[in-house]
């Protein structure tokens, strides 16, 4: 299964909608999309994980890397996620303290 990434500008944030599996094979694709956004001067990012069917530490690493990049420009990354399977890996790794995670787009957009 592949990873599809759709990007949409909303208010003054960029929303990345992921659809598929974020694993060691597909995470580099997400990484380069995040780097592209930073290169374009977009530092307010929302990543929608609602349609992610699988994610492991490859995805976490890429998100943390993205966060470091946007933070150096006073930006932020918020996540949309209500799936227990995905929330669990943020909890286990303590990343729930690093990423603001919302269960709907409205709140995520307000937060960035």
């Amino acid at each position, binding site marked *: 299964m592949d990873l599809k990434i759709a990007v949409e500008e909303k208010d003054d944030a960029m929303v990345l909608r992921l659809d598929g599996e974020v*694993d060691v*094979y597909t995470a580099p694709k997400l990484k380069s999309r995040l780097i592209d956004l930073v290169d374009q001067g977009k530092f307010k990012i929302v990543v929608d994980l609602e349609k992610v069917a699988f994610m492991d*530490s490859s995805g976490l690493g890429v998100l943390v890397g993205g966060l470091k990049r946007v933070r150096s420009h006073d930006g932020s990354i918020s996540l949309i996620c209500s799936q227990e399977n995905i929330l669990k890996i943020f909890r*286990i*790794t303590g990343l729930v303290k690093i990423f603001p995670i919302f269960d709907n787009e409205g709140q995520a957009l307000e937060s960035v």
Partner: protein
Amino acid sequence: MKVSEEVLLENKVKLVIPASSEYVSLARLALGGLIRNFLSDEEIIEDIKIAVSEVCNSVVLQAENVDNATLDLSFSVQEEEITIDVGCTGKELELAALTPIVWSEPEERGYGLSLISALMDKVELISDDGNKTILRLRKYFPS
């Protein structure tokens, strides 16, 4: 937990794939298909898939520049547990990469091992007859 009684116990399934990132999803697919014959708890199946992916990721990253390296998986499902052995040929599994690191600030790597140990019940390094290093993961099914 519903464990199917129709399927023979202790049977082993082996999967050998190229130690390359695009094949890790195939390992998850086969693993999911196999476990579903035995139990129907999707949360446990997802936990095991994540842990096995993490081990595969580590092997794949270490084997990046090794020709013809393979990832050798062996699954044995029994009534109350699943045991998964992960080894590789073409390159020794490096023990160092499986030692947890304590990061001072959030880093891009190092989450694999926390996930493996949180999601599985037992993680052991063992050696097979050929003295190849194998990481053995075990998960007990709630009864």
